[in-house]
């Protein structure tokens, strides 16, 4: 980490395994969903986390929220270990915004009660204070005050996602985990929610962890980007650097496959040989080597070390 800035969120060699049954007689096997991830997010930064599905992004997010304990390693928030913290103190510091605003809001509760629930749980202020704070929050996220008494079913997708944002922000957390915040929304609504996230970050000095498979959104919002493959971070760098000069072959393949809205360029040929490997039985050595174009003999033998330099972090034998 650079300078005197202390990371507000820090992960040290975090690992999470799941026991997966393979049938009646075969016993259980360990699935390494997240395998030795170390990351730091500075205050005010937006860390974009990208990768294909089943690479462990969501497991990582769930651990950060305290919904899953890590099997090994430490998660520090503001320099304090997450493991020792009580759920309540934790939830004041870190809050989620989920992908699907249709299933993440209780359909039987009114918007006002959904947004004020954290205040009630934490016993902050009194009834009239709650009402006032919720109304201020509604203003902040750009919802009319009259939706206070509406049910989520009466709102559009974009409005619901605004409610989810308001609920996440009412306790003034430092870190917000956005797990695919716009992928279930239409293009025009997506732009509204992204604009909201941008302006809230400026106004409240928030730190985001943005998990998304939409690389255009990540490029637009993130200040740093981490690329994840089969439970490991394979490259981490500043956004400009990563998009202009990707180093890891997987990052390159990922960026190549993005269909940017530029007509006339045609569909790119993606050089990713074999399909995604079975996470239960990951390839030996570098887990990316069966699909890698620049594969070397040592790649199938030993896992590449993570190398840190002024350009960021990369885990590949090409750079070690």
């Amino acid at each position, binding site marked *: 980490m650079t300078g005197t800035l202390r990371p507000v969120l820090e992960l040290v060699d975090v690992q999470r395994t799941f026991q997966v049954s393979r049938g009646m007689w075969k016993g259980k096997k360990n699935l390494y969903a997240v395998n030795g991830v170390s990351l730091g997010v500075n205050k005010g930064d937006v860390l974009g986390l990208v990768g294909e599905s089943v690479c462990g992004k969501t497991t990582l997010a769930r651990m950060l929220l305290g919904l899953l304990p890590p099997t090994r390693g430490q998660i520090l928030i503001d320099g304090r270990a997450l493991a020792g913290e009580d759920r309540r103190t934790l939830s004041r510091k870190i809050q989620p915004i989920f992908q699907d605003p249709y299933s993440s809001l209780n359909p039987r509760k009114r918007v006002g009660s959904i947004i004020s629930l954290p205040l009630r749980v934490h016993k902050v202020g009194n009834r009239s204070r709650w009402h006032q704070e919720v109304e201020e929050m509604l203003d902040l996220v750009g919802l009319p005050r009259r939706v206070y008494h509406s049910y989520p079913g009466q709102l559009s997708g974009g409005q619901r996602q605004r409610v989810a944002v308001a609920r996440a922000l009412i306790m003034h957390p430092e870190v917000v985990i956005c797990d695919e915040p716009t992928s279930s929304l239409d293009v025009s609504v997506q732009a509204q929610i992204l604009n909201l996230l941008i302006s809230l970050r400026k106004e409240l000095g928030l730190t985001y962890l943005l998990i998304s498979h939409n690389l255009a959104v990540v490029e637009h919002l993130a200040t740093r980007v981490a690329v994840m493959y089969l439970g490991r971070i394979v490259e981490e760098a500043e956004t400009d650097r990563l998009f202009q000069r990707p180093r890891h072959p997987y990052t390159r393949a990922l960026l190549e496959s993005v*269909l940017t809205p530029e007509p006339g360029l045609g569909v790119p040929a993606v050089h990713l040989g074999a399909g995604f490997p079975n996470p239960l039985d990951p390839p030996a050595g570098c887990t990316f080597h069966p699909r890698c174009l620049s594969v070397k003999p040592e790649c199938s033998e030993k896992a590449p070390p993570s190398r840190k330099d002024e350009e960021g972090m990369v885990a590949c034998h090409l750079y070690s």
Partner: protein
Amino acid sequence: MTHLLEVEDLHVDIPVPAGELHAVRRVSFTVQPGETLCLVGESGCGKSMTALAIMNLLPQVARRSAQVLSFSRKDLLRLSEREMADIRGDRMSMIFQEPMTSLNPSYTIGNQLMEALLRHRQGSRSAARKRAVFLLEKVGISAAKSRLGQYPHQLSGGLRQRVMIAMALMCEPELIIADEPTTALDVTIQAQIFHLLKDLQREFHMAMILITHDLGIVARVADRLAVMYAGQIVETGTAQEVFASPLHPYTHGLLSCIPVPGKTKRGEFLGSIPGIVPTPIGQTRGCSFHNRCPWANLDCASGDPEIRPLSLNRGYRCHLEPEVLKKKGQAVLE
């Protein structure tokens, strides 16, 4: 010029308790052999309904009407269900949105692939099996022979979508309708699938109607595109024309909403379209976009504009002159 598919003044109405839902209104377009037409729009704009209307797969309560709906000189409006079933899957086939739900879980992949060929062509099972293996290999599935005996749940999402594509190709159709074929898939697989579809299209000289809301896909895949809003086509043109100089205010709005690498500055606000789509139920007055349009005037609230053709493939549905729209669009960009 003979069109492969000609649609003129297509309407789809669905009776709902609150009245009549006009899902598709006055939609007209043509598709030439071998070309790709993209129907673009946000959810609820009627693009999937248009596809289902062409295939005659609409829900039973829906009513379809059109001036012309012809497929290689056959009038689809007058065909019986049996005659339509002869065309469907043979000369015209569809790739559905969700590979998870559109394969039958209780039949093997091989069974489902061969079914279309056995239904339409009087061939032997072994010939059908050969064709299935050939196509599975074409769509990039390894060990195709052993896949034939597998069930859909044994395959990943990307593989299932490839199976769907292979299935649509079994009888070498002249037209493929692909309804959001890659929404549930990763970007890497998405690129592979479109690469494959484009290759196959060239090889078999198929036409394709691609339905999507992703403007990135449209830009890279489409020859021509039709932007839909609230059940109507609001702008048509080649991909180059529409992306370089959009005319309809809605297209302007859509294009300003997406971050483009190198053009939009990081962390700056994106454009947005204020307001919400009008309800498709009951009668509408005026242009369907007028309540959200930044350039609307009094005319817009009273008269619904017709499509103004500019050239053979270019047209837009707005009261304003093209020069005015271009100027206003320029001003927004600056």
